[in-house]
């Protein structure tokens, strides 16, 4: 890549259910915070890319009223659908092309307005799966979890352990929604059963939230920011559709990780990364993500949990923020992971800071059973 791009500012909302603000107000407040964080004004921003979907927003062309809230009025703007990390990727393209110097990336979902699980069901093939009526993100992921558990000898208790790790860590994160400092495995297993083997606490909650990241090209970043966080590697891939895919393997994530590591010159992610923030909407996904990211061999994901390697004080802490199991504002979730990774690198994760993080990984996903995956490698220094 010819030009480097850095993150110079960020902000996120307090993720919660039933937010008492309009979508525009929610977004506006976070955008303002992000500009304040970056120490810039609206005039400094060249282009704006937002991420949301009309189905989740409950209206057609849902970005119509957002232009003013995100400060895109009389500015270059576009809307990427799906995950916020894709919006970040597109904004980065605009910066690398040299057309603009500073970009604002925004992603949000107000989950209480429209049930995200219902929207996931609407992404299925209208001619086949939709007609059957039982396929949605929860049921498909449950099947995937069962396949994974049977093949690698993973138990419900192992899944509960992941939820315990996430929800306990979340209690230190001021922005998280589901905070349970004293939760234990039995409580997770005893929470409401959704779809065998998932109980409520193993599934990400429905959240209202917004995340904003401000990007700048190299020259501008050095001028505007004392501690820019550089995008050292980025890649995104799509997988086959649900019915044609081997659900046991997150192929597109493997590919994305490989390319992102290559760009960032990472050979041994377990050793070279300081923190990983991944989007796991269901507990079992975290194990599959470990494997796809090359942190362990296939089927050994549960060992990383049981040995405490991915705990906040482990060798490679994964999701010290609590991850998506603690808050899942659908379109914003990937961008929240980016923000949490940036916070760790800058040493700004008060209360859940991992010591000496030089490089971090952020992961965003989209589609039932993580059909699309984006991996971003971030690093501090010059």
């Amino acid at each position, binding site marked *: 890549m010819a030009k480097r791009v850095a993150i110079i500012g960020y902000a996120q909302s307090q993720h919660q259910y039933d937010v008492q603000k309009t979508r525009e107000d929610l977004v506006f407040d976070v955008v303002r915070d992000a500009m304040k964080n970056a120490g810039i004004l609206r005039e400094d921003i060249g282009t704006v890319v937002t991420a949301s979907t009309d189905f989740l927003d409950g209206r057609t062309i849902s970005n119509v009223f957002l232009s003013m809230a995100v400060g895109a009025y009389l500015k270059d703007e576009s809307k*990427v659908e*799906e995950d916020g990390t894709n919006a970040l990727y597109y904004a980065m393209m605009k910066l690398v092309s040299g057309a603009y110097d500073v970009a604002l990336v925004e992603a949000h979902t107000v989950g209480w307005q429209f049930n995200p699980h219902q929207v996931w069901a609407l992404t299925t093939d209208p001619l086949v799966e939709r007609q059957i009526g039982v396929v949605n993100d929860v049921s498909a992921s449950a099947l995937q979890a069962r396949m994974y558990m049977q093949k690698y000898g993973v138990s419900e208790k192992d899944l509960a352990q992941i939820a315990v790790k996430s929800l306990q860590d979340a209690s230190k994160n001021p922005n998280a929604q589901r905070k349970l400092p004293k939760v234990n495995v039995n409580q997770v297993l005893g929470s409401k059963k959704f779809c065998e083997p998932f109980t409520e606490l193993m599934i990400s909650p429905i959240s209202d939230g917004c995340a904003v990241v401000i990007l700048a090209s190299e020259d501008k970043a050095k001028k505007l920011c004392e501690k820019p966080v550089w995008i050292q590697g980025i890649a995104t891939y799509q997988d086959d559709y649900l019915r044609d895919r081997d659900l046991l393997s997150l192929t597109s994530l493997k590919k994305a990780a490989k390319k992102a590591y290559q760009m960032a010159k990472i050979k041994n992610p377990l050793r070279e990364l300081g923190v990983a923030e991944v989007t796991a909407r269901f507990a079992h996904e975290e194990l599959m993500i470990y494997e796809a990211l090359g942190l362990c061999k296939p089927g050994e994901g549960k060992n990383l949990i049981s040995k405490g390697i991915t705990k906040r004080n482990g060798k490679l802490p994964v999701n010290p923020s609590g991850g998506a199991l603690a808050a899942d504002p659908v379109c914003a979730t990937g961008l929240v992971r980016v923000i949490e990774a940036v916070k760790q690198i800058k040493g700004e994760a008060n209360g859940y800071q991992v010591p000496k993080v030089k490089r971090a990984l952020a992961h965003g996903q989209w*589609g039932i059973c993580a059909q699309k995956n984006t991996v971003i490698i971030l690093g501090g220094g010059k």
Partner: protein
Amino acid sequence: MRNTAIIGCGQTPHRARRRDVSVAELVSEAVSAALEDAGITMKDVDCIFSGNMQGFGGIAQPDLWLGDWIGAPGKPAIRIATGGTTGGSVAHGALYAVASGMYDIALAVAWEKHSDSKEAGATTGLAHVGMGNLFHALSYGLSLKNLIATTAVGAAAGVAVYQARFYMHRSGATIEHLDMVAAKDRRNAAKNPYAHLRWPNCQPEDIAKTEMIAYPFRYGHVCPASDGASCIVVAEEKLAKKLCKKPAWLLGLASYSDEENQLQSENYGGVGVLDPSEQMGCRVSAKKAYAMAGITDPQKEIDLAEIYQPFPSQELIFAERLGLFDDGTAWRYLEKGETDINGSMPTDLSGGVNATNAIGSSALQRVLECALQIMGKAGEHQAAKPVHKAIAHGWGGVTNYITVTILGDSPR
């Protein structure tokens, strides 16, 4: 920004109902045509940008399941949806992907299959725009006057009526000029095998005979709801020169948004845009794109325009806002036939959106048609004059979103 060009174009015939194909098959039809035109296969494509209006086909993120029909698995695939401008935004995505140097060959594909919705997709879909606006206003508090004003707006046609009245009042254009534009576009469409409403030798008098819908729009003024898809292949300089005899080079692009104009304007007692024909977003987008392209006098340097004009008034308005004519004068050039196929500023020779409207695809078609004219591949509707530089325009949102793309026959 490195040199980037369009090297392949593909589209499907646009019809009211494509019952012979599913939406996935429709999209793959356009993609295959574009790949064939570029002389490459899907293996050569590095990344895909796709989009359509959400909700119109009743599927959330259809790219997830129909990706398998166009070879998306194993490739980076980004979905963009910005309403009416979707096609233009998707094209910009592919152009930026290549111009940035991050990918060498990118594909942009956009579509709409209105007939898959029980009611016309645009009716139900755009009703959501109206409803959304209503709920937006309710959350801030809404008076009866504003409630009536909101519900009376009636989505795209409703906005365009106000816009047309503003324009006619300020420019002196009359309803007869709208008849002339619509007749020209239907005539042009007759020469374009992919267009929907094709009416050979259509005359303004024929349009004038059609029923009045909402003043100043007659039935003959209004765009159809079409099924169709379009696709372009974008490549970097070396590959473009190797693969294509006459690539259409990217000279400039921009998509500056304006403030939406329905509620925060006079209805709402706010400070927003009062005159929807003013189009500051379009003026700024054009200015930025011209600057990028090194164009100082568009009236002389631009040879051809493809304007997004679901309603004929918009062809006149946006031609002016893009700087192709002075403000308030477009209808004078129309009278002289300057926007015809043999005129000095041929406009919408494909028939434009007025003759074919598969909404998600419409703004991409403008880019595609400009590329065809530059490549000399437009066939029967090829402009009489040589086309060196052409401008493609997209419009969407609540008249507040704009995409502008300038293409040329030689690189920047």
